[in-house]
């Protein structure tokens, strides 16, 4: 290849999400191509006809997402989302610290670096409390501590698998008594483009765990929280998870994903997330080109 691609779509594999994005980028008139891990060497070596104008990071693997984005950035390529943002979004502990520092409403969160600190934190927050690995995904490893027996069962099981505590830190969060559903808001640039309510029998409401999906209006409160998140992380492509705390009747930001899934939900709520994201990418490219 002698002419540099304008956009590289960095992927672990091309799922329906990424296929939609690729099609949407090309529909914007951009030359776009998937970038698999094995192709990265050629790109950073400059053997692909010059650096791309931009790389969209959609790696399913967190480790790869950070590795690719950092390497591209060091090679002078702009990435969406930026590596620092991906790092913050892939670590629930770092996210919590950012939210606290910037007064973003968030469940009360403690950071634990040992089994004893988990016990202490659960004791202080009261039960039920929720223990989360800082880097889990799709709700894996998230445990609700209903009582002291749960804590001991969790600690005992984990200690036998991880005696040296390599899997720390974890976050311990106050359990939010939510009304049986939570909200996922997809943000493109600074704009919340769609809000969906996810309802589930399970107390975790990931669509991955079979939660149902219903489109809801982006209210002023939702918009305000998303703006706060964007003010801290910068404009980008986010899935912002909000949960209503029934005790205070207000929304909290539970977490922000830098690699939101949208293919299935787009079908249901009818918002062309891929098209909106591609239009945003095209706009960013024209801004960069005009500045150069």
């Amino acid at each position, binding site marked *: 290849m002698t002419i540099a691609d304008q956009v590289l779509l960095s992927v672990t*594999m091309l799922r329906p999400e990424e296929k939609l994005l690729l099609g949407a980028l090309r529909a914007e008139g951009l030359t776009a191509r998937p970038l698999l891990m094995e192709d990265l060497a050629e790109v950073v070596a400059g053997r692909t006809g010059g650096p791309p104008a931009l790389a969209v990071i959609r790696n399913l693997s967190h480790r790869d997402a950070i590795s690719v984005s950092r390497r591209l950035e060091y090679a002078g390529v702009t990435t969406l989302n930026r590596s620092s943002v991906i790092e913050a979004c892939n670590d629930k502990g770092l996210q919590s610290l950012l939210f606290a520092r910037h007064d973003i409403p968030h469940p009360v969160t403690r950071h634990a670096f040992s089994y004893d600190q988990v016990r202490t934190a659960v004791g202080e927050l009261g039960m039920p409390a929720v223990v989360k690995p800082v880097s889990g995904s799709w709700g894996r490893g998230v445990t609700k501590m209903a009582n002291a027996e749960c804590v001991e069962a969790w600690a005992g099981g984990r200690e036998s698998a991880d005696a040296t505590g390599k899997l720390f830190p974890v976050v311990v969060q106050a359990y939010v008594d939510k009304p049986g559903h939570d909200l996922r808001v997809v943000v493109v640039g600074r704009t919340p483009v769609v809000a969906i309510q996810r309802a589930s029998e399970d107390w975790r409401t990931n669509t991955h765990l079979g939660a149902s999906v219903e489109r809801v209006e982006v209210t002023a409160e939702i918009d305000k929280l998303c703006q706060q998140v964007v003010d801290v992380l910068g404009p980008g492509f986010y899935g912002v998870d909000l949960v209503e705390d029934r005790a205070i009747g207000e929304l909290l930001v539970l977490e922000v994903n830098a690699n939101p899934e949208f293919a299935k939900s787009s079908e249901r709520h009818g918002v062309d997330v891929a098209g909106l994201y591609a239009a945003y990418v095209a706009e960013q490219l024209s801004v960069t080109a005009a500045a150069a």
Partner: protein
Amino acid sequence: MTTAIAAPKCLVCDTEFEVQEDWEKGEITECTACGQEHEVVEKSAAGVRLDLAPEVEEDWGE
């Protein structure tokens, strides 16, 4: 195990895949007969090479 033929077969049930014009390297595609997911590992004039789609790993996901 991979296969490198113009009309690749499902690595599980041997059903022939219909190769789509727009298939890209890295794309995940399902066998219409048994549902097994395959990854397009190579696409060239010679044909399409498929492998079984990778299993979900610990650090995958949102």
